[in-house]
């Protein structure tokens, strides 16, 4: 066995890292110059050869870090740039939100989770620390198997995954049945999940809506599947009040 080389292989040491650095400087230049900056302007500002700049911007557009604007000359930062910040960029919750959720937790003695929906993505922003829910990645990927996912799917059926994965015998994997379920979510303004992701866990989720009625967040209470169906009226009232409170906090009155 030969020892692994101490230096990175030639092709790694060579052009590729340089290209990555150039790509990042292009992103930075677009951020600095503001939307509408053209490829030629980027090339001049950075002192990069035009052909290289055009290749880089088109690569960044292809990967959706940059967006080519409607005039086809100008560029703006793409939505995907946020992903550069990675998982570290946790969203700051408006003041009062964590307190409202914690208050509900102490009163209902059920697991309470808060998710937010942004750009068709589900984010677990306040999971119950005592009863941790399934991983965010799992929830976000298999929207059909969770109550908070069904809330999102009921608004945005286009986010439906191509194949509906089965986790337990209760998971809804037939598109027609799921459509029926989602229609129920829309009419009842609540979604439930009965052991569809994990056999021992059921969930009831309510939408938190902005003033125009858009879906902002979802508040979920979780317990065993057989208890989800017969939750106390008083508990549901408390949850409902918390949903109203969250709506005010997350979408404050513009005045």
């Amino acid at each position, binding site marked *: 066995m030969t020892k692994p080389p101490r230096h990175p292989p030639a092709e790694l040491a060579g052009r590729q890292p340089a290209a990555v650095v150039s790509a990042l400087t292009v992103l930075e230049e677009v*951020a*600095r110059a503001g939307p509408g900056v053209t490829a030629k302007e980027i090339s001049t500002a950075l002192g990069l050869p*035009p052909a290289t700049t055009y290749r880089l911007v088109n690569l960044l557009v292809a990967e959706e870090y940059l967006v080519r604007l409607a005039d086809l*000359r100008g560029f*703006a*930062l793409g939505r995907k740039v946020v992903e*550069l910040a990675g998982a570290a960029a946790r*969203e700051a919750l408006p003041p009062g939100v964590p307190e409202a959720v914690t208050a509900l937790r102490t009163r209902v003695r059920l697991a309470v989770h808060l998710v937010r929906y942004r750009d068709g993505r589900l984010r677990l922003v306040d999971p119950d620390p005592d009863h941790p829910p399934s991983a965010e990645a799992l929830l976000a990927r298999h929207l059909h198997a969770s109550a908070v996912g069904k809330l999102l799917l009921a608004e945005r059926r286009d986010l439906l995954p191509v194949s509906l994965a089965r986790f337990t015998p209760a998971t809804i994997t037939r598109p027609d049945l799921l459509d029926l379920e989602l229609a129920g979510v829309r009419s009842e303004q609540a979604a439930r999940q009965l052991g569809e992701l994990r056999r021992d866990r059921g969930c009831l989720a309510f939408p938190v809506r902005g003033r125009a009625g*858009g879906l902002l967040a979802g508040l979920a209470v979780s317990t065993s599947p057989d208890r989800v169906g017969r939750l106390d009226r008083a508990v549901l009232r408390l949850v409902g009040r918390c949903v109203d409170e969250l709506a005010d906090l997350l979408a404050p009155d513009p005045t």
Partner: protein
Amino acid sequence: MNGDTVSALDDAIAGALARPARPLGPPPSGTGLDRRRLSALPVAAQAVANVAPSPGMMAASGMVAWLGVAAVPVYLLATLAMVLVGSCVAQFARRMAAAGSLYTFVAKGLTPRTAFLTGCALLLAYLSLVGMCLLGASRRLAMLLADAGLVSVAERERTVLLLTVLLGTILTTCVVRGIQISAMVTLALEAASVCVVLTALAVTAYSGVGIDDTLAAPDLTASAVTGALMIAITGLVGFESGCALSVETRRPYAVVPRVMFWTPAVCGALMLAAAGLHIYGFSRHHGGSAVDGSALAGPAVAEVTPLLPVLLQLGLVSSLFACAMASANAGVRVLFSMGREQVTPPVFGRTHPRYRTPYVAAVTVIPAAVLTPAALWLAGLPIRSISTALSVLATQGFLLTYVLVCLAMPVFLRRIGEHTRWASVAGLLGAVLLAAVFTGFWMETVRDGRAVLVAVFAGLLALGLLWFGRVRRRVPDVAIGFFDEATVEDILPGASPVRRG
């Protein structure tokens, strides 16, 4: 990298995260098409199916019979030319997603009138291809049915007509029902077809059955080589139809340019492989004589396995049907774009509320493309000459479009300030090369006594220009070049161009 620029990007990200989440509405409907849904594979299938490599592979192996080994450089040259066109188209596809494909691309480089001419040529090409492929598929199916004794020979012509209508109905349904479905059908049919044809060619090459004993001296006169080049190039056109799906493709600016470059390359390679297999089979069994490509489908292969000719015919049928489907998908999207721009009746720009496909365009032009040849046949024209006419019309349409798109590319890049010397050279070279091919094709057509088809082509385009003139008199500043613009959804929150615009 200095600290200042890093913080500009950081600020943009922090600003985006700090913004209140915009409530989710329905997805932006923009074009009315099913935006950003298809993965790369169906888009590639659409492009490959429209080229229809299977019949092309049969033609390639047939060409060995009269050109010998010279068929290889002929196909190499044709492939290079089409890859050049593909890379010119990719320059557009990297920068914009448009259902109108080359029609919209040309609009961004040349005048609206030229763009409309391109659109008409492209539409004519796609619709002729739909008619030709469906007719070809039903002719082969009817032949199989007659061979199996299911229909009598007397009824064969009527069977062809019935099958054409049946296949046309299936085709229209798939195109309306959704791009996912029609793209998947295309993919399955085309893959099956290429596998069958490659198998048949390989079996023939190894068994030596079906290889002609008589020596054919390669005919290497200039006119023979030009003719062969025409066959090779016309066998490779159609790959641009992948662009028509760009609005419906996920990550279109990454996927579509790659499809534009690789489709002609891979199809060319398949045809080279077909020619190569014949040359190999032939030198293996006869030490240098020619192979008769037509023997493949005939009784010779049946000696190896009686199923192979049937499979081969079915493979060709499925390739033809896939080609018709791909052409129909692309054609209705060109017409849809014209409808959206109101240069044709706006009703063509309407999409199905549920399936999000240009259904009005589909239910209008696909039946027209199917029924016109059927009517000509009923009027007494033989099926074979109808097929030839449609093929000649389609080829003229594609070649003219390619010349114009190559010309438009450097102009477009100059307009948006991204031109390079290499791009100008590529565009010019492509335009000159394709113009030469186009002229050659015309001369060949006239020499074959089909000057009337050149006249029909020119006449139809002239009608198109007359129509455009009429539209322009009513709406002088009619806007052509409708494409899928970036939406607020695509841009980082806080980074939209409000300050400048």
